[in-house]
């Protein structure tokens, strides 16, 4: 039994999150994600996708249920929350790069502060990561000097800086101009093929089809339907899934 348990890098059990003001963003959500899996979460606006992701790295605190990431249980404990954040990288819709730091400094920061690396060894890894996302030549630029697609690729490199075991993506391409979407998706696909465990909130069907192992369709804070991308897109079982897919196609 314990070996099977080890397979799951993220275990979410019956998690609920109600905001002050009474909005039930996530309601009794459960899911288990294996190592190296790529999971895509879809659902209408306000269905709780962002909130769920943010619960996984402790940016929000779920008021009930259990979240275990790589054997570490998220509870009130501050140190465990920091531990989990080192294991989980996150990429935001609005990039959230640090505008006063160069690209290189953005990627260096966590290595220097969290891993206490010296500048040279942090820079070495950062440049490798920037190479990987195809933006090493901009290392000394400031975020404002980059296009949206370039900024998001820097954000991916930054999130990878601590070599996390899981990467969370919250609509990484929805703030981008259409011609920049692919350069970001390509980096994400490369990451997926390298064996990274990924949880991706996106409405990019092509990406879901190509790299995801399964898709979660969410509405109203709950799972409506899950399944392999081919089957869920071709033959959605639930009326709500069908309606949503019709809208985004």
């Amino acid at each position: 039994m314990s070996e099977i348990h080890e397979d799951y890098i993220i275990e979410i059990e019956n998690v609920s999150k109600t905001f002050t003001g009474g909005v039930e963003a996530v309601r009794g959500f459960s899911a288990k994600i294996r190592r190296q899996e790529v999971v895509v979460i879809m659902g209408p606006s306000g269905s709780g996708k962002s909130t769920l992701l943010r619960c996984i790295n402790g940016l929000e605190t779920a008021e009930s249920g259990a979240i275990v990431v790589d054997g570490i249980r998220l509870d009130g404990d501050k140190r465990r929350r920091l531990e989990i954040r080192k294991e989980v990288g996150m990429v935001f819709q609005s990039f959230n790069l640090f505008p006063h730091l160069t690209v290189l400094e953005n990627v260096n920061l966590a290595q220097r502060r969290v891993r206490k690396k010296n500048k040279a060894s942090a820079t070495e890894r950062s440049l490798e990561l920037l190479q990987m996302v195809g933006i090493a030549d901009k290392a000394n630029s400031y975020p404002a000097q980059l296009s949206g697609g370039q900024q998001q690729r820097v954000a991916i490199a930054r999130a990878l800086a601590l070599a996390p075991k899981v990467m969370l993506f919250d609509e990484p391409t929805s703030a981008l101009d259409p011609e920049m979407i692919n350069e970001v998706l390509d980096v994400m696909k490369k990451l997926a093929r390298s064996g990274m465990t990924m949880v991706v909130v996106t409405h990019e069907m092509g990406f879901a089809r190509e790299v995801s192992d399964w898709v979660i369709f969410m509405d109203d804070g709950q799972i409506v339907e899950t399944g392999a991308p081919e089957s869920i897109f071709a033959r959605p079982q639930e009326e709500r899934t069908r309606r949503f897919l019709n809208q985004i196609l």
Partner: protein
Amino acid sequence: MKTDGVSTADSFHRAKPWRFLFRSPGKDVAQFILLIVVGGWLISLSTARLGYYWQWYRLPRYLFRIEAGRLVAGDLIKGLFFTLRISGVSLALALTIGLATALLRLSDSFMGRLLTRVYLEVIRNTPLLVQVYLLYFVIGPILGLGRFASAVMALSLFEGAYMSEIFRAGIVSLHKGQWEAAYSLGLSRFDTYRDVILPQAIRRILPPLTGEVISLIKNTSLVSLVSLSDLALQARVIAADTFLTFEVWFVTAAIYLALTIPLSIVVYGMEKRFKVLT
């Protein structure tokens, strides 16, 4: 005498009218000359009516004297140095208090938030003059603070309250995505403040903060009321001794202006640059 909260907005406004002098030079030079002429005329009118005799020649010795072939500072310049010293010490302390108060107010600690609220309300709703006296006559003796220390305490507690509001505004003006990105990287709250939040906030608040420094310099004149020999006290003493009332107070005002106007220009420059950058 203005003793209560010289708010930032307020000091901005006061700094503004003469900034216009720098726009479209020709017109403004003309206006400036007109202002001087009218001002001079009004002054001469009032001194004539008072039967005031200008005796400017008696004033320089209160600025500088030559003693044994060496230039020494007169009482007004000594007062200026004292004003600079008390401003400097109070500024350092006020910045520290301001930042600490802002961070405490934004913290999760209920007691911290409560204490800072009480502090801010008390400071902002009582006149600085009363605070100076209270610290000098009541709290200073209890804590064993000397005259200088209690005056510095009063000034820095007062300015610290206003500066904390500026710090707080700068911090909360940052997009919350900055916090989330830092936290998601595993940064502690301390590191997040140090590396991400404060460097950005400080750029934004430098103009209003400099405005507060101007207020601080002006407000130091109140310490003359507890007999600290700053510029204002020296001026009062010299004026009383020599009856050079007009000369002394004009020069004193000019010295304060010489301190604050460069700072106003700095604020103006920063505001302009900030507008370009954002």
